[in-house]
């Protein structure tokens, strides 16, 4: 069990989101960084879809009211467990009364905190995710506040070394790149932008503005102009769609995206890269890399393989630990 002592606004309980209610106007919600959520669950032996606490921005302070295993995955944020520094991706035990402190984030924008079995919150319409606009799901349909207490649905965890376990996951930026690269598919109105604007969209570095939330991130950069005019009829949109409103500055819709919109759509960030958008912070730079559907499918296969490889590596480490005790995995922690 964890008691929240201090938490930034907009921390919510999220799983992989709600599917099947889109025709009723209800978006997917769910973790902004689905990859980090899946890894945090993997580390605890949870189902990949188990709900965890999504913490955007820091600092935060939490107290463990009982001894429990927990996993922390996402932005590097100078996390300390009762004073001991923790790596960015970690699973281990917290003793009763231990204090978990999340400091300022150095890379990334979101941290996921998972407990054995997932956060024990009711399932509503097939998911544990918080639907902020509609105010249901997750923890009473709202953001977490000091004094709230979260429990894991299960008490036990995998066999873990006493010092905990850390793993290395692929980085937010490619080695040597200053901008976060987002693979994107050209969308409906892309051909209707001016030649110059199309070139600028696909070649410029875009800065993440301060207008960021679970609905979407607004970017700033060159002003994009359409060669045509006229309003569009309202149509479906999904997380990842890059819209360009009249001002010419793009918006990337994310987990809490509306299900319908009317702004021109220049591109769609592929599913496998949505976590990179989510982990971008105001001031970070993004670059769109044009891909086709075959490349989008291949990227998904690769991302799935990475998770499978992690699962295998983790099982291996756990088996070594069971066989040899702490000596076997000490070098990994």
């Amino acid at each position, binding site marked *: 069990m964890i008691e929240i002592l201090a938490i930034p606004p907009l921390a919510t309980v999220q799983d992989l989101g709600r599917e099947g209610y889109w025709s009723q106007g209800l978006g997917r919600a769910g973790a902004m960084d689905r990859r980090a959520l899946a890894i945090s669950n993997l580390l605890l032996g949870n189902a990949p879809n188990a709900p965890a606490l999504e913490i955007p921005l820091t600092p935060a302070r939490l107290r463990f009211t009982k001894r429990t295993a927990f996993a922390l995955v996402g932005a590097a944020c100078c996390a300390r467990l009762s004073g001991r520094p923790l790596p960015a991706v970690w699973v281990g035990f917290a003793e009763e009364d231990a204090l978990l402190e999340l400091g300022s984030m150095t890379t990334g924008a979101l941290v996921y905190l998972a407990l054995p079995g997932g956060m024990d919150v009711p399932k509503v319409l097939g998911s544990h995710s918080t639907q902020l606009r509609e105010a249901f799901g997750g923890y009473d349909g709202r953001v977490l506040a000091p004094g709230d207490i979260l429990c894991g649905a299960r008490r036990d965890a995998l066999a873990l070394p006493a010092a905990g376990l850390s793993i290395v996951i692929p980085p937010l930026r490619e080695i040597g790149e200053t901008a976060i690269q987002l693979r994107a598919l050209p969308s409906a109105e892309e051909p209707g932008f001016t030649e110059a604007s199309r070139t600028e969209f696909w070649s410029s570095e875009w800065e993440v503005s301060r207008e960021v939330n679970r609905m979407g991130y607004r970017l700033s950069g060159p002003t994009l102009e359409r060669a045509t005019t006229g309003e569009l009829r309202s*149509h479906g949109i999904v997380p990842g769609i890059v819209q360009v409103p009249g001002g010419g500055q793009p918006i990337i819709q994310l987990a809490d995206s509306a299900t319908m919109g009317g702004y021109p759509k220049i591109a769609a960030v592929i599913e496998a890269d949505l976590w990179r958008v989510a982990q971008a912070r105001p001031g970070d730079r993004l670059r769109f890399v044009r891909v086709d559907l075959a490349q989008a499918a291949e990227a998904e296969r690769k991302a799935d393989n990475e998770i499978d490889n992690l699962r295998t590596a983790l099982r291996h480490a756990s088996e070594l630990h069971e066989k040899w005790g702490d000596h076997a995995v000490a070098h990994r922690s």
Partner: protein
Amino acid sequence: MSDTRLSIIGSRAVLFEANCPFDLDHQQRFWAMATEAATWTGVREAVPGMTNLTLLLDQVPTDLNRLWQALAALWHSGRRQEIDGQLLLVDVTFGGAGGPHLAEVAAMTDLSIDKVINLHTAPEYTVYAVGSHAGYCYLGGLDPRLQTPRRKVPLTRLPGGSLSLAGLQTGVSASAGPSGWNTIGKADVVFFDPGRQPAALLKPGDRIRFRPVEVLA
């Protein structure tokens, strides 16, 4: 096929559009398409927009052309789905704090406030599509005399139950959120309740009639 278009809006989401007028006849063709496409293998959800159709897919599509051909064939069949939906009567308090732009709408349309309310409560509106936020209904049937531009400065948080209009569209927000429309009244309806089955109160083909219960200055 050149009068139709299939676009990618996500790794697993496509949008089908046709060059057609914006009216109930054509909307009924999209309802028919949605009903049919929802039964196709690999289609997770098929959702009508305003004379367009969005498909959410199980996988990244490998053959977009084949999908386009199948959807274009469905469109060109011309089949319409007439839905004899339920009629919902919605009591509205016009003006006051819940309808802050009523006088502005009257000024913009060069009509009296009474005339605005008369014209707005006269028709039976049809739910063309459900979306944007949970339970929100896009309505067709607004009197063209009530056409107004969107607001230059959107409201950041319009309360749920707000009756608004812009362009040729009108509707009642189902929950609090941002809005660039002109708000003329307030209704007390729960359009989406996760504890209800189905959670959304209305679906495409249902109808709404507004009844003025009070007009506040």
